């Protein structure tokens, strides 16, 4: 019992820190709270889909910006997709970077776009690793027989 309590406390603290640091926003809350007994891994499933999709988008973006003649419409289309999916999972910082990225696409500034892409990759990697830790904690709670706290 005490063990579950410890894990739950850890979960609560970790989650609070993610919000505090702006890693996730209230859309993540909504996503997380769509879980229930019959769909206990829903948030993780969606976020995992996001990870796969993001990898594809980041590859496409890297490729598009490496071209001799960059097609900024193509780049913008990918950033738009990335902005959409990061918004849907509550990845606040990634989403905000995508918004800036789109402005750079409009300006057709290759150098700044490349730099922004680097930032996006870093921020995304941070989001991914933190969410993986969070889901790991959730698994531990469930395995120990406890319930995952609801985020409010």
């Amino acid at each position: 019992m005490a063990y579950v309590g410890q894990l739950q406390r850890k979960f609560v603290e970790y989650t609070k820190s993610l919000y505090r640091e702006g890693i996730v926003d209230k859309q993540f809350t909504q996503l997380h709270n769509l879980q229930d007994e019959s769909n206990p891994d829903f948030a993780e499933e969606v976020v995992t889909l996001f990870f796969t999709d993001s990898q594809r988008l980041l590859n496409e973006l890297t490729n598009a910006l490496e071209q001799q003649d960059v097609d900024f419409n193509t780049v913008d289309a990918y950033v738009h997709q990335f902005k959409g999916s990061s918004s849907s999972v509550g990845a606040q910082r990634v989403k905000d970077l995508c918004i800036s990225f789109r402005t750079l696409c409009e300006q057709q500034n290759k150098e700044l776009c490349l730099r922004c892409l680097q930032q996006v990759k870093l921020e995304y990697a941070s989001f991914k690793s933190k969410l993986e830790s969070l889901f790991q904690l959730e698994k531990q709670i469930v395995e120990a027989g406890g319930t995952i706290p609801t985020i409010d």
Partner: protein
Amino acid sequence: MSTAGLVSRRDCSHQLHVLAVDDSVVDRKFVERLLKISSCKVTAVESGIRALQFLGLDGEKKETAGFDGLKVNLIMTDYSMPGMNGFELLKKIKESSTLKEIPVVIMSSENILTRVDRCLEEGAEEFIVKPVKLSDVKRLKNILTKGDKGQNEEDPLLSLPLSSHDLASSSTSSSSPFKFLDHRSKRPRLQG
């Protein structure tokens, strides 16, 4: 937020069937969940072409007159999609004599006045700014199920299934279940 208590007692006999169209796999999964929590049957497809195929409007086969269990009560489509976008899909649906009565809702991450205006003018019931909320889905569902409230007060199990076919023949003033709203309002819905 507990999901218990959201199940309507009328669900067993006539679940609303919603067709969700979105090229984003993340958004499809998310909207599907919102709809399932709201006790709707969901078919999620990735493009306008697939949506039309599902609706029987792919030009290769004629839509059958009988109920085949695939009747759609609401279409929720993303606006920005490669190939056929949400607006073009909306147009095709409204141009079809068999499908035009099905309410169509547009979802978009961009709350642009001209876009909202164009969609509403073309016949969209509502423009929802993404990310879609559970409250958006609940609101849509309430509007759709209110549509046949006047017909069966005694036994909800006897009420007519909500389908495009029924919507067309049931009401006198407007065939849209959204007649309660001024759906020609051009005010873009602000994200709450």
